[in-house]
């Protein structure tokens, strides 16, 4: 029996395993992105979770591990929002393309920085090359509350054109702080 035939089967096995992995990720992404639970549902689930799975060990993480993970993540998120001043009020993501080394996601994000609110839509392309993952923003669209201000609208359109999401957030931070300071100053004089 020659080894050629083994190689054919082994190659097919490898390609099938990759395909199964990719399809599993696609399925899970889609489930995640099309599901929504309200805060009450989440709270109720956390409470009943520990009762339901007392003593279960299917090779899954234990309820207390998951709960600890959730708490740690919530603390990190709440710290970042307080520290940077950027509060996200909603975020939705839809994976529109997924292959072995390329993922494209459509994001919708809204929130506010101090009293300045914003709404964003953009596409994020992530590509896996030999060493790392590269990320590129395209189709950026920004709606800002203080859009009537001509300086702000100029800033917004040049940012949109170049896909400058990072610059948008860094400038938003300083603009919002300045705006807040100005607002308090005016209130003081009223």
């Amino acid at each position, binding site marked *: 029996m020659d080894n050629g035939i083994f190689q054919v089967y082994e190659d097919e096995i490898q390609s*099938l395993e990759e395909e199964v992995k990719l*399809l599993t990720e696609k399925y899970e992404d*889609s489930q995640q992105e099309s599901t929504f639970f309200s805060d009450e549902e989440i709270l109720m689930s956390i409470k009943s979770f520990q009762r339901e799975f007392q003593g279960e060990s299917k090779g899954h993480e234990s309820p207390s591990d998951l709960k600890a993970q959730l708490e740690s993540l919530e603390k990190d998120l709440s710290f970042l929002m307080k520290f940077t001043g950027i509060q*996200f009020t909603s975020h939705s993501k839809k994976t529109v393309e997924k292959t072995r080394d390329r993922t494209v996601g459509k994001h919708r994000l809204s929130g506010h920085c101090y009293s300045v609110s914003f709404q964003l839509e953009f596409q994020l392309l992530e590509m896996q090359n030999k060493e790392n993952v590269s990320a590129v923003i395209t189709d950026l669209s920004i709606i800002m509350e203080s859009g009537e201000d001509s300086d702000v609208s100029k800033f917004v359109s040049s940012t949109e054109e170049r896909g400058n999401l990072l610059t948008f957030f*860094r400038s938003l931070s300083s603009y919002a702080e300045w705006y807040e300071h100005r607002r308090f100053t005016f209130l003081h004089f009223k």
Partner: protein
Amino acid sequence: MEEGKVYSPDGVFAHLAMLEAQAHEAAVKQEEKEQQEEKLARLKARVQELRAQRDELRAKVDLQQKGQLGKEGVVSDPAQPSARAVVEWNIKRIKAMLQVFYLTGISGKLTKRGVCFCISTAYEGTYLDSYHLDLLTKPEEVQIHRHSIPIFIPLEQIATKYLQTDIRRFLAVLSDHLNAYVGRRYQADQLQEHFSNQIEGTLQRNSLCNLLVFNYNVSKKSQTFPFNARLLYGDLCCSLPTEVIVSCTPDAPASLAARAAAHSDAFRRVALHKAFRSFGSAAESVDGAP
């Protein structure tokens, strides 16, 4: 005579030994054959198993796509989800939100003794390197425990000025330096990558990428590099140069030398690789003129 040899004591033993060896060889071959058949059967079974898995998943994903075709709104899982599923969903949701913070430029994670910040950088829509800064905030003053900031970024200076009084400001200034550095480096890399045939050798630059020197031409067909450019980026928080000197070799035609001033102006106003792109199209339009 040969018959006599076979039936002599030595001949018989030799014959037996030979038969034994043959039998042994046959047994070994038989075992090998069985092992290979076993392996083949295992591989075939695995392929069947994976194909079935793959087909099942394909059907599931198709069903999902069909279910979403008509509705734009969010859909709750019709089957009552388990509490575990809800918790896991929430964990994924928060992780996704934390990834968005990465895109804003400042993200991080709480640690036992403080915070580990991550400063991300980008040039226009392309995200580039990210840098870590592990800060200790207890017991009294803020300390930098570990970091991955390159040595040519004036971290100590910035820390001395802002770290104790305003951490936000400290990170903002550091982020400005890092983003500007990465932006300058990106422009130089883009120039080297896309216009290598218009540049003599490689671009000369320092580690901070705030001093660039190179010889170049504007035509892709020319073999000489009559222009010399020296770009100094005096403002470390800026990715455009503050000082540009473009000169032309003395033996170059006057029409070419006249363009040095226009080039210098372009380098001051526009990103390096974009300026080069504009030279290219200007040169082509001149060449094409009757």
